[in-house]
């Protein structure tokens, strides 16, 4: 969704952010580095890192951003467990949309990737059609 958001809003984002690459935090996402560190600290359950990341985000972006970030982090701590506990594959539509992204971020290194077959030529072809279509659709919905 980050990559789609960036395309739709025509923003500059280095997607390696989600892999925790600090050098990827430059771009159009305000407070990206502090948000990334906070998210990572929540997921890692390193309480010292979390206290530090929380202070940094609070200082940089304020309490409202901190509270929203905590809510989103809590939400995705749940979503990953729903997906993995039930072994669901990526939906074909999402798999087509994220075809390039999976390669760019090397996401097939995750054990849970085994629930989604690689796809092959058909998915690659679908990705060429699906991404521009989704972009147009969401832009239309945004108006």
């Amino acid at each position: 969704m980050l990559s789609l958001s960036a395309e739709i809003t025509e923003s500059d984002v280095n997607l390696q952010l989600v892999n925790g690459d600090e050098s990827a935090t430059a771009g159009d996402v305000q407070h990206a580095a502090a948000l990334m560190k906070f998210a990572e600290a929540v997921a890692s359950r390193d309480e010292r890192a979390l206290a530090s990341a929380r202070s940094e985000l609070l200082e940089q972006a304020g309490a409202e951003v901190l509270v929203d970030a905590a809510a989103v982090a809590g939400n995705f701590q749940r979503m990953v467990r729903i997906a993995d506990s039930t072994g669901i594959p990526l939906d074909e539509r999402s798999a087509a949309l994220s075809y390039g992204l999976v390669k760019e971020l090397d996401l097939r290194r995750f054990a849970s990737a085994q629930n989604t077959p690689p796809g092959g030529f058909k998915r690659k072809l679908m990705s060429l059609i699906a991404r521009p279509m989704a972009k147009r659709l969401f832009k239309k919905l945004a108006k």
Partner: protein
Amino acid sequence: MSHYQYDNSPYPIRTGLAPAYQKYWGALARPGTWFSGAERVAIAGEVRNALNCPFCAERKAALSPYAVKGEHLCGPVLDARVVDAVHRVITDQSRITQAYIDDNAANGLSEERYVELVGVAVTVFSIDEFNRALGLPLEPLPQAEAGNPECYRPAQAKHGTGYVAMIPADGATGREADLWQHRTANVLRALTLVPNAVREWMAVGDEQYLSMTGMAQFGTFPGRALNRMQTEVVAGRVSSYNECFY
């Protein structure tokens, strides 16, 4: 007792979050679809025990979850298989397999009960994680209410997508007509064997992240401090750290 007041929070908690958590705490205490209220509250307790369970830590570090034997740090209410499933969902979810679920089903933990326990565990965990992320104490668990579980299995649920039966994309009909309109996704269908588990986590998710309608928007949302890209940076990093392909 009135839960989730956040009176002592150093940060103003966004309107909508506390009512969603309060509503969920109420549902947690009541008899569910396959578990009693007391069992549901005990599952919530196991979510918290799992995070301090030495056996879970040892198992997580092992090459295979089956390479180590031991006993969980747990309360007295739940059957050992239920405890183990809750602890796995919280601490080692990426190594849950079809074989694990089938073995449980053959030994008394049915897939319906498994799905309900996943729903309770992950929803409690997501609320607890919100508090922990802000450095706030965890909310005391609610007092369980008496009564029997409903034991309802939607007739249209079938196998074929993941490890458990799910309502198919065109199956949101009858009692389940409210689950989605037009389109759905596998993650929304994942717990539909227990439709209330989906309703409960989605109500919390609408406030913590975005509603289904909101997901189609890519700007800034009324009442939210994060814009969509900032939201997705947090979402993406949490998912990636957890090695979630989905």
